[in-house]
């Protein structure tokens, strides 16, 4: 048994050494397909992470267009506080709003020089309890807020977030379809590459059959070869993915993001990395299985 296994592995390795170009072609094909699929996966996962985060930050802001009288304001704040959904109400004065805006502009704060301190409206930032931070039931809350803060501008992150989420689900579907297509293409190419090595070695396979080798004995090294190539392809994909992640994705996010520190991109966790590599092995095995089906008959 061990003897046989050693023999199979040796034959698989010999085959790969004998046809380094074909072998490299299979490995690279699988690596490219897996890398593309995994990259798309990373993008989807991170965009999802982002939307989740944004919906967590979901808060309602009442912009006080015309500053209300202090007593009316106190009245408004306390009745909002009484609502079950509301965790906290913070009153932001026009001066505080300006200070925040300055801070956000950072280096560009100089642009605000000479601008009046009360040009921005004051606001009430209403934070919600965690269990209410979703859009179901939000309409109801908003209706109540509208009566309490009549005449003021009420903002919440609903509209664009909803549109963004439907974009994410389109992204996810596209990823699934594209990934499926890529893997299928890789399977096809690998199967044909292995068939080429088959063809290149048909003399050897014919002689094997003629001296009494069973079909399984003839085929096993090719399966092993497919698995090994898949393993290399998977590892290569993992390496490429790491490079793409560190060198491109993170850089893009850093250059786009206003507050880089607040958001850290997710990479594949250990489990997912294993799946990627194992996916390569499966791809290789299936690739050679499909080509072996049409093994020359002797």
């Amino acid at each position, binding site marked *: 048994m061990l*003897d*046989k296994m050693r*023999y199979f592995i040796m034959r698989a390795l010999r085959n790969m050494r*004998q046809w380094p170009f074909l072998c490299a072609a299979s490995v690279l094909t699988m690596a490219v397909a897996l890398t593309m699929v995994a990259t798309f996966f990373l993008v989807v996962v991170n965009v999802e992470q982002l939307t989740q985060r944004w919906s967590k930050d979901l808060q309602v802001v009442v912009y006080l267009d015309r500053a209300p009288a202090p007593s009316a304001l106190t009245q408004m704040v306390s009745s909002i506080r009484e609502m079950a959904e509301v965790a906290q109400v913070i009153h932001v004065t026009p001066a505080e709003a300006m200070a925040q805006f300055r801070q956000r502009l950072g280096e560009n704060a100089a642009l605000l020089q000479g601008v009046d301190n009360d040009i921005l409206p004051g606001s009430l930032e209403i934070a919600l309890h965690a269990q209410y931070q979703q859009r179901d039931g939000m309409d109801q809350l908003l209706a109540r807020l509208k009566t309490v803060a009549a005449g003021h501008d009420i903002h919440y992150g609903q509209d664009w977030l909803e549109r963004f989420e439907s974009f994410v689900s389109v992204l996810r579907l596209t990823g699934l379809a594209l990934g499926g297509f890529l893997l299928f293409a890789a399977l096809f190419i690998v199967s044909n590459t292995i068939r080429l090595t088959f063809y290149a070695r048909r*003399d*050897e396979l*014919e*002689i*094997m*059959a*003629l*001296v*009494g*080798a*069973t*079909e399984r*004995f003839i085929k096993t090294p090719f399966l092993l070869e497919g698995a090994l190539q898949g393993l290399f392809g998977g590892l290569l994909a993992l390496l490429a993915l790491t490079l793409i992640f560190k060198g491109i994705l993170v850089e893009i996010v850093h250059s786009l993001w206003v507050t880089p520190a607040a958001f850290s991109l997710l990479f594949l966790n250990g489990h997912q990395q294993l799946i990627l590599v194992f996916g390569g092995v499966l791809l290789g095995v299936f690739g050679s299985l499909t080509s072996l089906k049409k093994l020359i008959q*002797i």
Partner: protein
Amino acid sequence: MIQLFNVTKSYRKDSVALKDLSLEIGKGEFVYVAGASGAGKTTLLRMLYAAEKPSRGQILIDGQNITRIGRQKIPYLRRKIGVVFQDYKLLNSRSVYENVAFALEAQGKKRYEVSKKVYQALKEVGLEHRLNRTPLELSGGEQQRIAIARALVVDPLILLADEPSGNLDQAVATEIMGLFRRANARGTTVVLATHDPGLYKRFPRRLISLDGGQVVSDYRPDTV
């Protein structure tokens, strides 16, 4: 050991390679199958190791009917039969040793067993000093001997050889015949296809002559 009953083989509709052939070859016999080119010798041998199926008739090898043998059983039939192919069918990228070991490895034999037997077989054909050469570095006669060593290394019940003296000069052919006769003396049934009358005149044995796919004579010399 080998029995054919009314075997007909046609590759195409309008022609037959073998026609209603019946014959029996006993255990331990040494038989020539003679005939001109196209007489059907190769076809007959190929059917014996199940590379071709008869169109009609039955073939028994070692008591087993191989006429409708399943694909999975063919390897086990072939393990009983050593074949020396007309074109040798050696792997030119492998060493002499590997070529002979190939037959044992294909049958899943253990490594220590393989090396011992390969060495013995190569010694038997006088090539033990050429282990690491590749076939193309050797003469035609030596290549033939590698092919014979590969056929004999598995201790077959039956040895089939297709035109083994075909491209060889007489001295080498004589040497090769010695190998077949030694294998036969150890109990292996030998079937040797040839179109070279000189061969069976020098080493007379049972002679089955084919012509147009039919047996035209089956001659046994008295001396054997």
